[in-house]
């Protein structure tokens, strides 16, 4: 795990002026997000936010527990089906729909986790990939997903019964709120006593056991939390686009979220957000160009791994400016 560990942020390494500047940056970012829908395309922004949350949820597992899941699409896409079905067929309000999506994803995470956490490293990646693939086939064949057609025309409904989410701005701020809650939850988990144990497990598993920690339970806990948060992103996305389709459960989606995280910076809080923004923009932009999208995605993957391993935020943190802001971390 050598290289993955190094880029993680350590709270102790920040200086107090750094902290102040970070705070200012944070406030600026927040302001940016609030005025963004007035200049950018709201649906696009919402999509970025959903994927950013998804990537952050994924990163909770990879960056802070050292487990590379190649099956996170199952939680993202699974939740999007659960939410879509609950909202469309049962007519539940949007907030309950998302909650059901989250619960569904967490449950799925629990089941997959029980198998997957028995192995580490590459094995873990392969096992999650295979399990997610099983779930994909389930979704493909199950009646309620409508196969290739997907669940279409999912109503957004009224938040808390009175906020009309069909208004793009209402929807945007709803998504933004969910996004912020999700990110805060991740930040909280990472910087919590529990997060500390996760980190120590990643560093030296045997030692953690010998200190009395039931390592597999912590891993399972982290896995389920990550799945639930990925589900939060998936459920929200369903409401944004008003459909749930097979694309979100296919393994290529698991690959995409890895790309986003890698691109932004594994083990940084804000990296995956940038990564997600970049990838989503790219997909949109390239759709209209003659250049095949997959080829470019693949190239970016390769380049990142070879020369850009810390990702955008990771490189920034490690740069001189980053150091001045107190972001540089122990190598």
């Amino acid at each position, binding site marked *: 795990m050598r290289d993955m560990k190094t880029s993680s942020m350590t709270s102790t390494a920040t200086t107090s002026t750094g902290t102040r500047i970070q705070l200012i940056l944070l406030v600026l970012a927040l302001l940016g997000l609030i005025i963004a829908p007035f200049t950018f395309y709201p649906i696009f922004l919402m999509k970025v936010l959903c994927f950013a949350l998804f990537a952050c949820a994924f990163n909770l597992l990879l960056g802070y527990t050292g487990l590379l899941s190649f099956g996170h699409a199952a939680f993202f896409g699974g939740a999007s089906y659960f939410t879509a079905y609950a909202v469309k067929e049962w007519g539940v309000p949007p907030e309950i729909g998302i909650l059901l999506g989250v619960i569904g994803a967490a449950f799925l995470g629990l089941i997959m986790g029980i198998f997957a956490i028995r192995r580490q490293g590459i094995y873990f990646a392969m096992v999650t990939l295979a399990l997610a693939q099983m779930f994909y086939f389930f979704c493909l064949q199950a009646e309620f997903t409508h196969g290739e057609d997907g669940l279409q025309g999912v109503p957004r409904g009224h938040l808390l019964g009175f906020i009309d989410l069909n208004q793009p701005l209402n929807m945007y701020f709803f998504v933004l709120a969910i996004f912020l809650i999700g990110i805060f939850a991740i930040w909280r988990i990472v910087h919590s006593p529990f997060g*500390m144990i996760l980190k120590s497990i990643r560093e030296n598993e045997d030692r953690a*056991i010998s200190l009395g920690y039931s390592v597999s339970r912590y891993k399972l806990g982290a896995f389920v939390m990550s799945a639930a948060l990925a589900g939060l992103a998936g459920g929200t996305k369903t409401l944004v686009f008003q459909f749930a389709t097979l694309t979100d459960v296919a393994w290529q989606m698991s690959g995409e979220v890895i790309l986003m995280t890698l691109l932004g910076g594994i083990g940084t809080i804000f990296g995956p957000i940038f990564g997600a923004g970049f990838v989503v923009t790219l997909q949109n932009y390239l759709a209209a160009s003659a250049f095949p999208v997959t080829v470019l995605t693949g190239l970016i993957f390769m380049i990142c791994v070879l020369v850009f391993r810390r990702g955008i935020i990771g490189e920034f943190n490690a740069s001189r400016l980053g150091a001045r802001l107190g972001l540089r971390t122990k190598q």
Partner: protein
Amino acid sequence: MSQNANEARVVLSARDLRRDFGGFTAVNNVNLDVHHAKVHALIGPNGAGKTTVFNLLTKFLQPTSGTITLLGQDITKTSPARVARMGLVRSFQISAVFPHLTVLENVRVALQRPGGLAVQFWRSMNTLDRLNDRAIELLKSVGLEKDIDSYAADLSYGRKRVLEIATTLSLDPKVLLLDEPMAGMGQEDVGRVAEIIREVARTRAVLMVEHNLTVVADLCDHITVLQRGEILAEGNYDTVSTDERVRIAYMGTDDD
């Protein structure tokens, strides 16, 4: 604490312990009693099965047969983490720290569990600050107070071992298993660690593997010699070191 009353109490015992690896029996017929407030050494030639015995006692390995009792409870089928929570904590032959945590954090991670601060994913890390005093106190006692904010990875090998012992101690274990705590340590640290162990053993049971016979002679109340997975001799240093079989199998003819 009525230490004297507890003096002879057996806290950890193994009966007819055996472990096979494929066709090879690494540990056979081992009976051990570890007493409260005593330092017990496990010595023997390389490959005798000492580390394996440690792994069995701490449940990192499952015995092929035999029973293990810790503080009166049968732990033969218990998980390693649970055993640790019951008060049996070990160190490793190859040093085991959390390299990218600071020295302070290393100790705090251990303190978290008894402090009930392990699973709280909804609370701020700052809640851990209340463990700092205790952690610093421990680090002082082993002479690591200057390195509190360094990453464990930056410590020299010997200091890492000291840190490992501090971490282990912070759990306030009832039984301490140390696998070659002095290996690779410079002379200056050996003395200090020996002192720490002696201090610790006043209120706890210690079982240690060590090849440094000077330390063993100096520190240990009781010695068990293993050879080829079986117990060759037992007793205090004088008994053991004069045993002809032990000299041939382990100590050599050199009067070290």
